[in-house]
């Protein structure tokens, strides 16, 4: 199977032979950091362009089509514009927190990238509580949003931030329960073990009914957690101008914008890992005839392609939500969580546990 394990091992050995262990570790960290920042920049450009094109096609428009071939350079031009723009700080804002907030949001998005496996052997940190780490760190990003809203000294920003806080705190529960449902099947919180457990079929197929219910709950909850429509209460344009980033401009606004898209990528990567096997190719159970031949054929497609393909399919799904559904009111939003998603999630967890104990999954 195609793997980048050899490449990473060669680099690791070369560095360890040349320098002592500490310096080699530091150099590796720098390399990984540069890779992560590059990935972020590329993701920002690609996802913003994708969002604009998807929205255009769904609304029977053309979308960006002027800058570059078929508008491909549009997001690069937008970035250039944002870099040149003045980064404005309001007079009575809390300047320290105001300037810190976008970086905090960005750093949390970067931290979330650590346990995600891009392909076999291409994973920054395979810690044994990977899924717990992801759900714990992702809820910290609300602090960045609250900080931005509070420091702006603007009522729109503050209301947007408070809404965002209420929303993220509520939907964390559902997302956590949905993930927990799958942990019942996988029996491990480690990302690499979760992926390895899907060697003979992805959990969405193996776990059948509870897995599908859990997937639906998870995708709804993460849409709310990333503050995207139909749950974009935090920046409801018609009510709050731009919510928590009303007062931001230039590159600091761009960081919020980038963090939103990177967060979408990360939650979709988590969903792809837990439900669709991450970089694991589409394998079928060995009990089916010719399964080995089929599985070998699927292995020819590299894991990176599988991973990005699954992730981008899920990102497309979330974009599809955004350009189809109208925004919920704040009380409807909390009703949906506390009256529907949470009870269904709890029931689903019970169902999954029963199925796991009885061994009724494939």
């Amino acid at each position, binding site marked *: 199977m195609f793997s980048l394990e050899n490449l990473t091992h060669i680099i690791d050995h070369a560095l360890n032979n040349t320098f002592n262990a500490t310096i080699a570790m530091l150099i590796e960290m720098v390399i990984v950091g540069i890779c992560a920042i590059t990935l972020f920049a590329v993701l920002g450009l690609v996802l913003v362009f994708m969002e604009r094109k*998807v929205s255009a*096609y*769904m*609304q*029977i*428009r*053309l979308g960006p089509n002027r800058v570059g071939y078929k508008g491909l350079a549009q997001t690069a031009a937008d970035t250039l514009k944002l870099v040149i723009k003045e980064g404005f700080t309001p007079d009575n804002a809390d300047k320290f927190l105001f300037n810190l907030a976008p970086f905090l949001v960005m750093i949390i998005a970067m931290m979330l990238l650590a346990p995600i496996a891009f392909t076999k052997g291409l994973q920054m940190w395979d810690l044994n509580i990977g899924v717990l780490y992801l759900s714990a760190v992702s809820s910290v990003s609300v602090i960045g949003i609250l900080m931005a809203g509070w420091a702006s000294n603007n009522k729109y920003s503050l209301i947007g931030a408070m809404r965002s806080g209420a929303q993220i705190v509520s939907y964390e529960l559902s997302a956590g329960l949905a993930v927990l449902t799958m942990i019942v099947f996988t029996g491990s919180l480690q990302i690499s073990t979760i992926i390895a457990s899907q060697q003979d079929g992805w959990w969405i197929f193996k776990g059948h009914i509870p897995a599908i219910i859990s997937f639906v709950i998870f995708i709804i909850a993460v849409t709310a957690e990333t503050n995207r429509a139909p749950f974009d209460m935090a920046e409801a344009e018609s009510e709050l101008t731009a919510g928590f980033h009303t007062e931001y401009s230039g590159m600091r606004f761009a960081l919020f914008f980038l963090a939103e898209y990177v967060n979408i990528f990360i939650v979709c990567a988590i969903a792809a890992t837990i439900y669709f096997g991450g970089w694991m190719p589409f394998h079928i159970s060995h009990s089916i005839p010719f399964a080995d031949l089929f599985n070998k054929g699927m292995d020819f497609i590299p894991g990176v392609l599988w991973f990005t393909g699954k992730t981008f399919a899920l990102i497309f799904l979330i974009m*599809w*939500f955004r*350009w*189809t*559904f109208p925004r919920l009111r704040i009380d409807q939003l909390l009703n949906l969580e506390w009256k*529907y998603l949470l009870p*269904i999630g709890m029931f689903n967890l019970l169902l999954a546990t029963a199925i796991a104990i009885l061994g009724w999954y494939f």
Partner: protein
Amino acid sequence: MFLVDYIKTVYNGVTSLLKGMRMTGYYFTHHKEIITQQYPDVKQVLPERFRGEVVMTHDEKNEHRCTGCTACELACPNATIKIVTKFDITPDGKKKKALDTFVYHLELCTMCNLCIVACPTDAIKMAQSFEHSVYDRSLLTKVLNKPGSKLMEGVE
């Protein structure tokens, strides 16, 4: 009964959401018809009565139909039109009031059409041009009668 209602609500909610997604999914996959106008490339055919700006009609001999009666200036609700008149000497030695400059402030005009209605000789009309943006506001103050133009024969 509560449970049945609850499940029914969830079912109805999910199916209506899926219906919406099928609609947008159809648009996404059937990308042929575009409802937006490709404006600078393809210019729209404007309706006949579209009001873009006031113009004065001139014929090929550079003659207009404006007698300088100032009916349009009086009809204008926000002083968009300013008419400067002069006195021509007719061949039989009489002084006759005539148009000197027809000043039109496009930046003030609301396209209400009252001047066109007020004009007794149909000298002015509404044009369909709408691309009026300029870098200097003074460029929006226009003189409608062309230089060297004179009153058409027979128009009183």
